[in-house]
C-alpha cells in the first residue's frame, strides 16, 4: 500500500486532537464541589512559561486559602491546548458541558486565549487569563466573565519599549511572530516609539511556530541601520533570536529589546549571553520577603524552574477567585460566572506575589510593572539570582488607560 504525506500528517493531527479529547472518567456531579481547569501548553514552546508549574501554583493557592478547612471542596483539572485555538475551545466546551468546570485559568498563546474567552462568555463561567499577552482581552473583546492578570502587550510596549526610547534607542527594527500576539506587541511598541520621536525602520514577520533560524531577519535588521532590535515574540523564539543576534555581531550595532521575556528564558540563555538585557515582568521571586516566602513554599514542587509572573498570576488569580466564591456562597458562584467576576472586581486583591491591587471594570488587574536588567555573571550570587530592578511603574500607570481600550463594558 502507498503511504502519502497527507495520510501521515492527517494521522498526526487526528492523533494530537484525540489525545487532548481523550475521555475522562465522568465526575459525580456533586453540587458543592468547585472545579478549576488549568488550560495551557504542556508540551510545546510555552510549557516552562506556564505548564505544570501553573498547576502547582493553583494547588498552592487552594492550600494557602485553607479551602478544606472552610468547607470548600476544590478539584483541579488540567489539559494541554497545544497552542491551537480549536483544540483549546473544544477542551473548554467539554469541561463546561460534561465535567462541570467552574473556572478556567492560565491559557497562554493569544489566539487560543481569545477563542476560550468567547466560550467562557457564552457559558457564563469565570475566565482568569494569565499567560496570554494580547491586550484585546480587556479591550474590544473584553467580557463580563474575563479577568486578565499578570501582563499584556500594552504594558510590555510601554515599559520596555518606553524605557528603551528614553535612553536613546530611537531607530527600531522589529521581528514579530506572525500571530495576534506578535502583531499587537509590534503595533503598540511602534506607537510609543513614534510618539517619543523615534523611527521604525522596518520589520520582518516570521512564520510561527516552526521558525528556528532567524539569521535572515537579523541580517536585514543589520542592513537597515537600526539601533534597536525589537523582538515581538516569546519563549524559544526569543532565545534563538538573542543567541543568533550575538553570533552575527548585531549587538555591536544595536540594542536588543526583548519585549516579552521570562526568567526561564534568561535561565535557558545563560547570563553570559543574556547579561544587560532589559525586560519587564510583574513578579520576581527575589523582590521582597513575601515573594521569597511564596517561592520557598512551591520550590520543591517545581524542581526545574523558579516561578515567573504567569505562574505567580495563576496563584494570585485562584486565591482571589476562592475568596469571592466563599463570600458569595458556592451555589451562587456556580450559577453565574459573571457574578463571581463582578465580586472579584469589587474587592481589592491581596496576595504574596503582587501585593494589593485593584481590578478595573474592563477586567484588567492593575499589577505594578517592574523594569529589570539582567545581571552580569559576576553580579549573580546564586542560582536564579538574575535581575536588578531598574524602574517600578505603579499599577494605575502600567496599563492602557481605560478609555483607549474601547471595552464595551466600560460606560463613558
Amino acid at each position: 500500500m502507498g503511504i502519502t504525506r497527507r495520510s501521515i500528517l492527517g494521522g498526526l493531527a487526528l492523533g494530537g486532537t484525540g489525545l487532548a479529547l481523550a475521555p475522562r472518567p465522568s465526575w459525580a456531579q456533586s453540587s458543592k464541589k468547585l472545579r478549576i481547569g488549568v488550560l495551557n501548553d504542556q508540551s510545546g514552546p510555552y510549557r516552562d512559561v506556564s505548564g505544570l508549574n501553573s498547576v502547582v501554583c493553583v494547588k498552592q493557592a487552594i492550600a494557602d486559602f485553607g479551602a478544606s478547612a472552610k468547607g470548600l471542596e476544590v478539584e483541579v483539572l488540567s489539559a494541554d491546548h497545544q497552542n491551537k485555538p480549536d483544540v483549546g475551545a473544544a477542551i473548554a466546551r467539554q469541561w463546561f458541558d460534561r465535567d462541570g468546570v467552574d473556572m478556567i485559568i492560565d491559557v497562554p498563546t493569544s489566539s487560543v486565549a481569545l477563542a476560550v474567552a468567547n466560550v467562557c462568555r457564552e457559558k457564563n463561567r469565570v475566565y482568569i487569563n494569565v499567560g496570554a499577552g494580547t491586550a484585546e482581552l480587556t479591550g474590544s473583546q473584553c467580557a463580563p466573565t474575563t479577568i486578565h492578570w499578570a501582563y499584556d502587550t500594552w504594558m510590555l510596549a510601554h515599559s520596555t519599549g518606553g524605557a528603551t526610547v528614553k535612553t536613546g534607542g530611537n531607530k527600531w527594527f522589529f521581528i514579530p511572530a506572525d500571530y495576534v500576539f506578535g502583531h499587537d506587541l509590534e503595533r503598540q511598541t511602534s506607537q510609543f516609539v513614534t510618539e517619543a520621536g523615534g523611527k521604525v525602520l522596518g520589520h520582518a514577520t516570521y512564520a510561527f511556530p516552526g521558525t528556528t533560524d532567524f539569521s535572515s531577519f537579523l541580517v536585514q535588521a543589520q542592513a537597515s541601520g537600526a539601533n534597536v532590535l525589537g523582538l515581538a515574540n516569546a519563549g524559544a523564539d526569543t532565545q534563538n533570536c538573542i543567541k543568533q543576534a550575538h553570533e552575527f555581531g548585531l549587538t555591536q550595532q544595536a540594542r536588543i529589546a526583548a519585549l516579552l521575556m521570562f526568567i526561564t528564558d534568561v535561565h535557558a540563555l545563560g547570563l553570559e549571553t543574556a547579561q544587560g538585557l532589559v525586560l519587564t515582568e510583574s513578579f520576581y521571586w527575589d523582590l521582597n520577603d513575601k515573594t521569597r516566602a511564596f517561592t520557598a513554599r512551591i520550590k520543591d514542587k517545581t524542581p526545574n524552574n523558579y516561578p515567573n509572573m504567569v505562574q505567580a498570576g495563576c496563584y494570585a488569580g485562584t486565591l482571589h477567585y476562592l475568596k469571592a466564591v466563599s463570600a458569595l456562597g458556592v451555589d451562587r458562584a456556580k450559577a453565574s460566572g459573571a457574578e463571581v467576576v463582578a465580586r472579584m472586581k469589587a474587592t481589592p486583591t491581596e496576595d504574596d506575589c503582587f501585593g494589593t491591587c485593584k481590578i478595573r471594570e474592563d477586567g484588567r488587574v492593575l499589577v505594578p510593572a517592574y523594569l529589570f536588567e539582567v545581571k552580569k555573571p559576576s553580579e549573580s550570587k546564586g542560582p536564579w539570582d538574575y535581575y536588578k530592578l531598574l524602574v517600578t511603574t505603579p499599577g494605575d500607570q502600567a496599563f492602557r488607560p481605560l478609555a483607549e481600550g474601547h471595552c464595551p463594558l466600560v460606560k463613558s
Partner: protein
Amino acid sequence: MHTIFGIPAPLLFGQLLLGLINGGFYALLSLGLAVIFGMLNIINFAHGALFMTGAFAAWGLLNYLGLPYWYALILSPLLIGLFGLVLERLFIRRLYGLDHLYGLLLTFGLALIIEGLFRNAFGSSGMPYQIPRSLSGAVNLGFMFLPLYRGWVVVVALVVSLATWAVIEKTRLGATLRAATENAALVQAFGINVPRLVALTYAGGVALAAFAGVLAAPIYSVNPNMGSNLIITVFAVVVIGGMGSILGSIVSGFGLGVIEGLTKVFYPQASDTVIFVVMAIVLLARPAGLFGKTA
C-alpha cells in the same frame, strides 16, 4: 546601492549564503534519512528526536564531564550511534519484512517517547550552549557579517555529506551494502554478516543525525522540541531529492536551503511553506523525486 529585484545586492548575497548554511543542516539530516531508507527501507521518523538527543549529549558532556565542543563532535555521534544500535537490535530489525507503515509508526512512537522523556527531565525552555572560543567572532565579507561558526558549519556539512556519498557509492564496503539491500540471501551466502551490516548502517544514519545535533547546539536553543521543528521540512527535502537517493538529498538539501533563504527576503511569512510548494511541483513533474529511480 546596486539592487536586484528591488533588494540591495549585498542583502541578497547575504541571504544566499545563509540559505547555503541552513541547507547544510538539511543536507546532513536528510542524508541520514536517505541512507536508512535506501539501505533498510525504514522511514525513520525518530530522526528529529535523535538529532535533539545529539545536541543534548553535547550539552551533557560539557556540563557533567566538562568535555568541550570538539570532544562532543566525536563522542556524541558515537554515543547516540550506539543507542541507535540498541534501537535497531530491540525494535527496528523486527520490521524489515513488513510494510513501510509499521516502521513509520514504530519510529514515530519512539520519537514521541524520547522527546517526552527529555521534556520531563529538562523542561521545554532549553539549555545554554556556547560557541567554542576558537570559532567565536565573525569576518566582514563586505556584503555581510559572517560568523566564523556558520562558515565552519557549511564546510563541515559539505565534507561529511560528500564523504558519506563516496563511502556508499565508491567503496567496496558501500558496494557490499548496496548488494545486501538488493539480495540479502545471496550476499549472506558469500560469508558476509548481513544483519550486522544493516545494524551498523542504521547506527551510521543515527550518528549523522547526532552529528548535526552537535553542530546545531551552539546556534539554536538546545531544547526537546528542536528536532520536531526540523523533521517535517527534512522529510520534504528527502522526498524532493528522491527517497533513498544519497546524492539527491545532498543536492536538494543545499538547494532548498537557498530557496528558503530567498523567500525570507521577498515574503518572510511564506518561508515555512515554500519547501512544500516546491515538493508539490516536483512530485507532479517527477513522482519519484529529482534523483529517484522509478520502481
